[in-house]
């Protein structure tokens, strides 16, 4: 799809939609943290893509262009969305993220609690760090691609992902300092 104009025809655009729907949905799902809002934003993203189809110059990858539009769509909607969570429990019982590990807890339970803390640490990252970190973690995007999607410099993307990882790492250190033996 790279290096060419976007289709102006409905059938071709449908094919484009089918081809990239999952990618766009996945990015948005990781950013907003729930299926409903992500589906909503997918529709907005493709509507926006259709309206802006004349602006695509074809000099970059369509996937990158789509990710940028998806991210702009997400930014426009962010104020009305609830605070996104990276991880949706998919209908499972909510995990208690603030228990004290007891001496009687099994190894599996301890592991589960530790992961709950990690999830919470990621959820609580500032937006500016969380968003590039999500793209880095889930989409496997290179820092250059993240920078391109978010409209920031690669250096800024690198710093934000590193800070996010350090923040999570710091939370784990605190946890270990408190419950070292049990964990």
């Amino acid at each position, binding site marked *: 799809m790279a290096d060419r104009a976007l289709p102006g025809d409905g059938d071709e655009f449908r094919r484009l939609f089918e081809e990239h729907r999952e990618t*766009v*949905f996945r990015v948005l799902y990781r950013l907003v943290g729930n299926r409903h809002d992500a589906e909503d934003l997918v*529709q907005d993203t493709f509507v926006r893509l259709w309206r802006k189809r004349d602006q695509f110059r074809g000099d970059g990858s369509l996937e990158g262009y789509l990710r940028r539009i998806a991210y702009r769509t997400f930014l426009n909607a962010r104020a009305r969305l609830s605070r996104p969570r990276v*991880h949706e429990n*998919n209908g499972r019982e909510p995990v208690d993220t603030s228990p004290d590990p007891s001496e009687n807890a099994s190894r599996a339970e301890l592991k589960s609690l530790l*992961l709950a803390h990690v999830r919470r640490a990621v959820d609580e990252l500032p937006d500016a760090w969380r968003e590039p970190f999500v793209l880095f973690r889930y989409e496997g995007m*290179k820092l250059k691609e993240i920078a391109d999607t978010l409209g920031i410099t690669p250096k800024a993307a690198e710093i934000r992902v590193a800070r996010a990882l350090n923040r999570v*790492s710091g939370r784990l250190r605190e946890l270990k300092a408190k419950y070292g033996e049990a964990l």
Partner: protein
Amino acid sequence: MSHDLERIRDYVEGRLPPAEREAFAAEIARDAVLAELVETYELVVCATSDPAPAATTSFGDVVVRARAPRRVPRPLLAAAALLLAVGIFFLAWSSLRMTPTSVTLTSIPLAVRPAPGAPPEWPRELAAHRTADEDGLLFYDDMATAQAVAKAAKAPIFLFIHFPGCPWCKEFREVQCRDGDVIKAAEPYVLLTLDWRKAPAALREDPNEGWPLFDILDADGRKLDGFKGLEPAMTVAAFLSKRGFPRPDWEGLGEGARKLEEAEEAKGAAARLALYRQVAAAGNVLGDAARARIAEMEKSAQDALFAARDEFLRKGAAAAADRLGAAALAFRGTPYGDDLERIHTFVREHGSFPDLKE
């Protein structure tokens, strides 16, 4: 750092080639900080390994969304609401401004002042006053006029007392009064000549000691100096110069007096007020007269305003507007007229009498 981050991820997710993986593992073993980051990222991967659900949005949903009215972003809605609020506020404010309840006066005072007394008079002779002409010195021939001019000019009086048939008096008129030095020396004085028989008793000295009689008087008629008998022009000039009286600004006094006369003749309050204002700064009777006449005009405008207010209370807006219109016309071109016109306009447009402010 980017290399490290991406390598950490690729290592944890098993995407590094075996050789590179082995090298990186050795690096991790040597570097505790790197080891901690790798461990953290491993935990992050474990904690967030739930796969994303599959998308269910169909192309039809996109088409429906595309045909739906565009959703207005919240910031735009907020901005529009803000603009609307500002607009409503502005309209309300403008509306309040457009219906004022007061008029601020710039010239007519609101404090009621007592009616001014008769304005001070000034000697009309000042308008044409000259000490001499081509025929020699010019004398006033009555005491009251000379004193009035002397007071206005803050000048002394040179009194020449003669007697009918007195040859020395005649010679004085024909010779000394035409002498240039005498004329020059007489400039500080108001010149007065009196028949001995009509002179004030205090000044009517024995003429047998010499004719004519000469006195220097202050503006109130009190004698300051004098001599008797006909003396040469040089002696007369020396006598007049002896006291060193300053020469009054006869030209300025004449001009001021002429302006006051012109003001009295002027048609229209604007011209009259302008002339009075030109003279009002003078620190003499002319300035006093001008200021008194300005105060009269001000009082007259105030009377007209208060009368219109009474008219409004007694007969209503139309009668008050008529009176104000006439008053504004009478004072047209003056600041009083402007004040009256503003009130006139207000009463005519709003049908009410405004609160007056200074």
